[in-house]
């Protein structure tokens, strides 16, 4: 079976000289849920952001759905429509209502008809449990609600891959569950997901594979059972002893 994401020996050196990714290679199959954990500053966000080219890479190769991201013929804006992203800080558009946030890209990027887009957006907000918050502006929503709108917004372009960068880290504890529930539903529907998170419970329950990054290197990639119950790598053991 063909991999939906192929990252080959990816290196990222920031202009300030920081070597944030060192020969990171990851293959993801369609429908797989990958959870990436690791200490702060280990390059998790950087890696995730290379997968939709919010960061360019210094060397290596990335293929999404068989398309080489850095080929001359690749239209990055087209490719990004296939890769949804959810940010730690939500990044909702504050001048648009919840519905407006979800509708913007289908209207302006896909140029689809308004009535159709509106119906789809309403269905998406319904799906993330916010049918009654359509006309709210982001500033009038709780953190958990905002993050669910952000997920609906990313889904509106019907991506095949969803990237989550610490989606619950900015939330009050009582709101973490509602966002994780939406993500679990997505995983059940067969969405390919790459999730950076500190929620070990989510990793154990939902992940097909868990990866451990440290100092820009991908050190361990294993099933959740092996990863949490029988870690062989000493650096991972040390990390787990701190977070569990």
């Amino acid at each position: 079976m063909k991999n939906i994401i192929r990252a080959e020996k990816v290196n990222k050196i920031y202009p300030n000289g920081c070597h944030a990714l060192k020969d990171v290679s990851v293959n993801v199959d369609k429908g797989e849920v990958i959870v990436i954990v690791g200490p702060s500053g280990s390059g998790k966000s950087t890696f995730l952001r290379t997968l939709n080219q919010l960061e360019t890479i210094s060397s290596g190769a990335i293929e999404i759905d068989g398309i080489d991201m850095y080929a001359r013929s690749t239209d990055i804006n087209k490719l990004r429509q296939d890769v949804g992203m959810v940010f730690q800080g939500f990044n909702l558009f504050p001048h648009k209502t919840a519905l407006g946030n979800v509708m913007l890209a289908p209207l302006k990027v896909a140029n689809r008809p308004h009535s159709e887009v509106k119906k789809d957006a309403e269905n998406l907000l319904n799906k993330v449990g916010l049918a009654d918050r359509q006309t709210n502006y982001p500033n009038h929503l709780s953190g958990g609600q905002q993050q669910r709108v952000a997920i609906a917004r990313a889904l509106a372009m019907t991506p095949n891959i969803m990237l989550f960068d610490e989606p619950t880290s900015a939330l009050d504890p009582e709101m973490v569950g509602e966002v994780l529930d939406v993500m679990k539903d997505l995983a059940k529907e067969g969405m390919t997901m790459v999730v950076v998170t500190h929620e070990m419970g989510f990793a154990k329950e939902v992940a097909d594979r868990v990866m451990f990054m440290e100092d820009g290197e991908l050190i361990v990639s294993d099933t959740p059972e092996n990863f949490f119950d029988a870690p062989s790598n000493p650096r991972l053991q040390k990390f787990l002893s701190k977070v569990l």
Partner: protein
Amino acid sequence: MQLNLKSLFWNGIFVLVLLSICWLIYASGKRIDYNWNWERVVPYIATNAESSINAPEDGEIVLAANNQLVLENLSGDVIVELGNYSSLNVYEGDLIFEGDTLASIEEWRMGPILHGVITTVKISAWSLVFALVLGLFIGLMRISSNPALKKLSIVYIELIRGTPLLVQIFIVYFFIGTVLDLERFTAGVISLSVFTSAYVAEIVRSGIQSIPKGQMEAARSLGMNYPKAMMYVILPQAFKQTLPPLAGQFINLIKDSSLVSVISITDLTKAGREVVSGSFAPFEVWFTVAALYLILTSGLSWAIQALEKKLSASD
């Protein structure tokens, strides 16, 4: 209660200071034996004057078939119908020569000051639109990663902001205006828009840079290209942020427009100067001109505040 008394006291002081300033102006007028004659200004704003209808060519007044007086020229064609005028100066059978007064009508007409207001509003409105568009482009160039665009915009901004508007008006009118054969009004609009656009560009730049980086990232991650992300995500937010400084800049624009009177555009200021020499009421005229500018600037300020309020629904 304590607080109420205190605020009442200071509000009283405020009114008192204003009243004494008014008195001071009045007293200074008295000191130089100035006779305040506000009614002299009125005809220069608007008049209900008689104006006469003159004969365009030689002819004769005859009674037409519908029992109304008309002016016929020598070949017998009707050239002026007089039925509509109430006060006629001619009778049937009169011989008329070109330029004779046939009738007079009373109507409200704008005086030179109102004409000046209209010119000022026109020149400011055109300049505002061009300054906004030009300033937006220069501002976008300023934050561009392309060195050529960026440096060009910096040179433009520094050049314009570093030289006086009056000098720019002369350069545009006498140099560029001569080369391109521009009208006065066009030259005025160009200098004002160029001058204001440099400030608008800086306002636009700081407005865009005040929008968190995550907004652009979110827009791009949805597949929007850079122009679309700017247009639908960044600029609408930046616009809201920049409204207060833009309002200040556009109020300056209205006031700066008074400088175009140096190239003989009869705006409100030039109208004021002309009226002063005819009316023998310089103080009244200049106070009136000042009040009219104040009405224009506060009108704009009010409109922008209303817009701000409308945009604040998402706060």
